[in-house]
């Protein structure tokens, strides 16, 4: 099977210019040699902290930025050097949903105009066909037809994100890049949007490149995970393997930092040490060695390559094979009263959802 999206050795370096003559005095290596594939109908999650290069990687993949090095292939076709009309035609096949539902919708356009615009740009359908499509899109993301006449400010954050999703789906793309689509939303609303994305993927056979910093959300949406640190992928593999048996210390750090809704394990967490180094000044050797609890001398001098630890599970750590098993997966058993009530809640929810359909 041909991957929908394939990136190979992608890099984006920005020169730091100083002084009157704008001489380059250094380089910010925002993305520094990243390779991955997204298969049809699959969700690949790119995870990492702010500044790790995950959003830049997504923009390179969409050709919204031009890479310094590397290639991007879309459905087997090399699109790295594509320009003009062919690139525009390609944009129909790949779309993006942004993080901030407040900043990514034009406040002076109605929802109808917002959803119709991509159709006009790509010259899809006549006026009537476009109107029908707008109504269809609103239904698809769980909004009502009368919402078409409203302006973005009349909607809540969750509803705006639905509009952003509908806009991305307007031109029937094969690949949707979701750049932190739920991190600006409340948990309860986050859950609604995560469920919606899941439904849409199943109904429309979409492929997702899901950018996130929250591993808990990723656990729910992804098929495969790629963890990024300072412009590189440091661990990648099928979701279940990466979460059950992370083979890179950074992945472990991210996992243990998530605050768990369980007061009984409050002190089980080990806090991370230090801040993310600047991508303008990447540490020598392994780029994670300044924060790594497992650091040895070799890590300070030798840059580890991504290598296989299990089938399809890769890690860029010299000590990947020797890391002790991670025990944070063992959750405190759910207290009976809470478990019983949550089960009851789920039951009622399901019954209600059926009643609606």
């Amino acid at each position, binding site marked *: 099977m041909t991957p929908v999206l394939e990136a190979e050795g992608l890099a984006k370096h920005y020169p730091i210019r100083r002084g009157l003559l704008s001489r380059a005095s250094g380089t910010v290596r925002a993305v520094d040699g990243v390779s991955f594939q997204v298969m049809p109908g699959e969700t690949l999650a790119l995870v990492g902290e702010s500044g790790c290069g995950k959003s830049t990687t997504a923009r390179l993949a969409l050709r919204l930025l031009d890479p310094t090095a590397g290639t991007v292939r879309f459905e087997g076709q090399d699109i790295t050097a594509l320009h003009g009309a062919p690139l525009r035609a390609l944009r129909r096949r790949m779309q993006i949903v942004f993080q901030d539902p407040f900043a990514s919708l034009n406040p002076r356009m109605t929802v109808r105009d917002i959803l119709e615009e991509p159709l006009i740009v790509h010259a899809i359908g006549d006026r009537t066909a476009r109107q029908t499509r707008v109504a269809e899109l609103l239904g698809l993301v769980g909004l009502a037809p009368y919402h078409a006449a409203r302006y973005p400010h009349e909607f809540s954050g969750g509803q705006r994100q639905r509009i952003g999703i509908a806009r991305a789906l307007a031109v029937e793309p094969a690949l949707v890049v979701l750049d932190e689509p739920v991190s600006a939303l409340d948990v309860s609303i986050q859950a609604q949007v995560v469920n919606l994305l899941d439904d849409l993927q199943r109904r429309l056979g979409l492929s997702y490149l899901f950018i996130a910093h929250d591993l808990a959300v990723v656990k729910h949406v992804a098929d495969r995970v790629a963890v990024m640190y300072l412009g590189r992928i440091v661990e990648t593999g099928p979701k279940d393997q990466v979460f059950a048996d992370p083979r890179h210390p950074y992945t472990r750090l991210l996992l243990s930092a998530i605050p768990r809704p369980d007061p009984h394990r409050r002190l089980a967490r080990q806090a991370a040490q230090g801040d993310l180094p600047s991508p303008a000044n990447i540490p020598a050797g392994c780029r994670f060695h300044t924060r790594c609890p497992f650091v040895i001398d070799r890590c300070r001098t030798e840059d580890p390559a991504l290598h296989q630890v299990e089938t399809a599970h890769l890690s860029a750590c010299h000590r990947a094979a020797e890391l002790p098993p991670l025990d944070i997966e063992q959750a405190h058993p759910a207290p009976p009263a809470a478990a019983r009530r949550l089960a*009851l809640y789920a039951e009622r929810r399901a019954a209600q959802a059926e009643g609606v359909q």
Partner: protein
Amino acid sequence: MTDPLLQIEGLRTVFRGANGDVPAVDGVSLSVPRGKTLGIVGESGCGKSMLSLSVMRLVPAPGRIAAGRVVFDGQDLLALDAPALRSLRGNRIAMIFQEPMTSLNPVFTVGDQIMEAMRAHDRRASAAGLRARAAAALDRVRIPAAARRLDDYPHQMSGGMRQRVMIAIALSCGPDLLIADEPTTALDVTVQAQILDLLRDLQAQTGMAIILITHDLGVVAEMADEVAVMYAGRVVERAPGTAIFDDPQHPYTLGLLGSIPRVEETRDRLLAIEGAVPAPFALPSGCRFNPRCVFRAPPCTEVDPPLLPLGPDHTAACIRAPVEDLAA
């Protein structure tokens, strides 16, 4: 048992609307014991930030506090005059906000901003003494090379560093109560973990009480001794920090717990709460949560439920709780 440090009784904060007053906080009673952490949880728009602003008497116009009492260490804050209030704010009660990017002034150094707070409450301090205290304050929030970083501008620091500076400013006068409004929401998880650890350690050192406002029940589980769940301007459940997770009673609390994606388990679907928090000018009749509630029954649309006792120090405003009795 000693008096609580802060006691809020029947607090009501309203905004003037076209058709009369609109309540943002509607009859909230809470207390914060000395040295403990009260977590206030709820979705955006549930009134939790407005509650904390009311405690500080910082409600923005056209809002005003319409009723209630806020007793801090024996003094009713709502009865204080402006100078008395000013000497209390930043000194005995301090506040940190969500946005470490916008809470600091970009044109002053970090040191200037820490010293400004100290000088405001101690007019006679010497410049050298202030600088030494400011450096000590930065050192306490674990900023490396503190004395040197005093001369940094906010943009030279990372988000986590800036939030540490905010905490240093808030703690510079040794407050008895720290109100932290979503202090880690804008930060990465690893940085969030560092800041939460820091707050916990500082609390152990200084014995200050904390009101922690957040929408994240994970953060609450890490920090809170007591929890109040707010919905549409009201407290709908109040319990000790462990009970809210072990023995959640209100359907809204259940919904919040069900919405959290957990690393330990893979559920097919998250239990989202459908719909959104109602606007304060369009509150439903009866229980305010009823339109979104999966356990709704006929009386829920008519009866506005009071907080009912359901366990030791545990109350919830739901006539259907405990919900397992419905199945029987």
